[in-house]
């Protein structure tokens, strides 16, 4: 549910959490990203970092430079303009994925859970242009919204100790891509050869909140030759 007016909560004495609603909803997330874009665009002395998420924006600041009252006054002045303007569109990125086999060890089980064939799961998963709601968990890991309800699957009962970077997974209504080798509990249905986080690139982090992602099925051979 979207709040009529955003709510402001302290997160310690050097951060404020601005909440726009209490559900995963593109309208709510658009407001988060609009405020995020505005604060980023304006050189705000005293703001040290910003963390956008599904329905909230965390603003970290130094109260010696920017008082809490001044920050709150500025924010309240922003409320009327939010949600109305067409938010700047992020870029659309096509992510090649090889589904199944050793790259997607849970694909068969996910298919069986939903009474489908693996091919049907792949078709449904790759048909949607997903919205990046936020990046979190590890550098570059996107939380993607828009997964077909027919594919909603709970997390694995026991998380894996190591999920390889590039793994594409499903957890409840979310889909995402592991950006680093890490422990993980998502249902793994495929893997991408694309690096979401690569320090040798000029832009190490491929995706940001507000971008959109389309998965494109590729063969194992295409994966190897990528």
């Amino acid at each position, binding site marked *: 549910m979207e709040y009529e007016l955003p709510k402001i909560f302290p997160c310690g*004495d050097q951060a404020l959490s601005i909440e726009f609603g209490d559900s995963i909803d593109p309208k709510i997330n658009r407001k988060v990203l609009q405020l995020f874009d505005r604060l980023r665009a304006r050189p705000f002395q005293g703001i040290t970092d910003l963390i956008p998420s*599904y329905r909230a924006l965390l603003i970290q600041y130094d109260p010696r430079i920017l008082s809490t009252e001044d920050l709150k006054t500025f924010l309240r002045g922003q409320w009327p303009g939010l949600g109305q303007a067409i938010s700047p569109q992020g870029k659309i990125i096509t992510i090649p994925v090889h589904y199944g086999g050793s790259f997607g060890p849970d694909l068969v089980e996910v298919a069986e859970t939903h009474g489908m064939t693996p091919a049907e799961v792949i078709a449904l998963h790759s048909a949607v242009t997903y919205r990046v709601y936020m990046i979190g968990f*590890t550098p*570059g890991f996107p939380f993607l919204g828009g997964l077909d309800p027919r594919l909603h699957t709970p997390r694995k009962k026991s998380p894996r100790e190591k999920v390889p970077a590039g793994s594409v997974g499903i957890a409840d209504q979310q889909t995402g891509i592991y950006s*680093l080798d890490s422990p993980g509990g998502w249902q793994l249905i495929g893997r991408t050869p694309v690096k979401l986080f690569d320090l040798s690139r000029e832009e190490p982090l491929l995706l940001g909140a507000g971008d959109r992602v389309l998965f494109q099925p590729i063969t194992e051979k295409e994966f190897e030759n990528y």
Partner: protein
Amino acid sequence: MRTIRVIKPGPLTTVQDLGRWGFQDRGVPVSGAVDQYALRLGNLIVGNREGEAGLEITLGGWEAEFVQEVSFALTGAESAARLNEEEVGFWRRIAASKGDRLFIDHSRTGARIYLALAGGIAVPPVMGSKSTYLRGGFGGYQGRALRKGDSLDCGPAREAGLPEIPLGLRPAYSDHPTLRVVLGPQDEEIADQGLSTFRAAPYVLTPQMDRMGCRLEGPRITHRRGPDIISDGTSFGSIQIPGNGQPIILLADRQTTGGYVKIAAVIAVDWPLIAQALPGRTIRFEAVGLAEAQKSYFQRESALARFLKS
């Protein structure tokens, strides 16, 4: 230029500065010194910028040889330390000559010791910071903890620095600290009984602590509805209450977002207390207002600024 060579690295020593800022929206943790105030003071003693990179030596057990002469300072958890045969103290500038050896015993007073070297540690910055992010394997010294045989370079020394930091400006560490907190952002998700418990009961720091966070054990803190929230941003000192009702205090390498209820966050001026707490120690929480929390922070920073001017 090559300045110090590691002989015994101790359980976990990493290069850290005051953190990697501006990339948390992309999932990149801040990292940096867990006890930032101690690192800042060490840097000021040796004449560095406050935010210069130093070594975070967890629990001591350190031995190193100085390959070049350099001024250094030890701050953080006071431990028995020697330069060759001579005992050296914390919070003061010490001159090392080429060939000198620095020994730091296993620390009994606190978790983290900081070694600041004049000129700072010369490692390539990654995304604007020299801090090590261990999970990601980047930053600091080759993205990892130091090992025997590693050699570190220092930059050119800047200024003379200070002979020592007076007692009144050093952090007031405590064996069994009371951490002042500001409630929120999800304190409303905690049952009334849970809030009373949190504000009154003692919690013990378990051995499950690292640069990401520390887990406490004690009376269960209950939720109104459940422990899960729609993931949102975290800060240093944020206190999560997962399903088992046992608090987790988030530290430097914490994930940028989290899906557990956050009942409160430790106030900035008390961050050194949690940075130094050892397993087995008792911790209590005291809820304070935002204004009071910030006032303490302003007082500390003003006192430091006044001292530096004089």
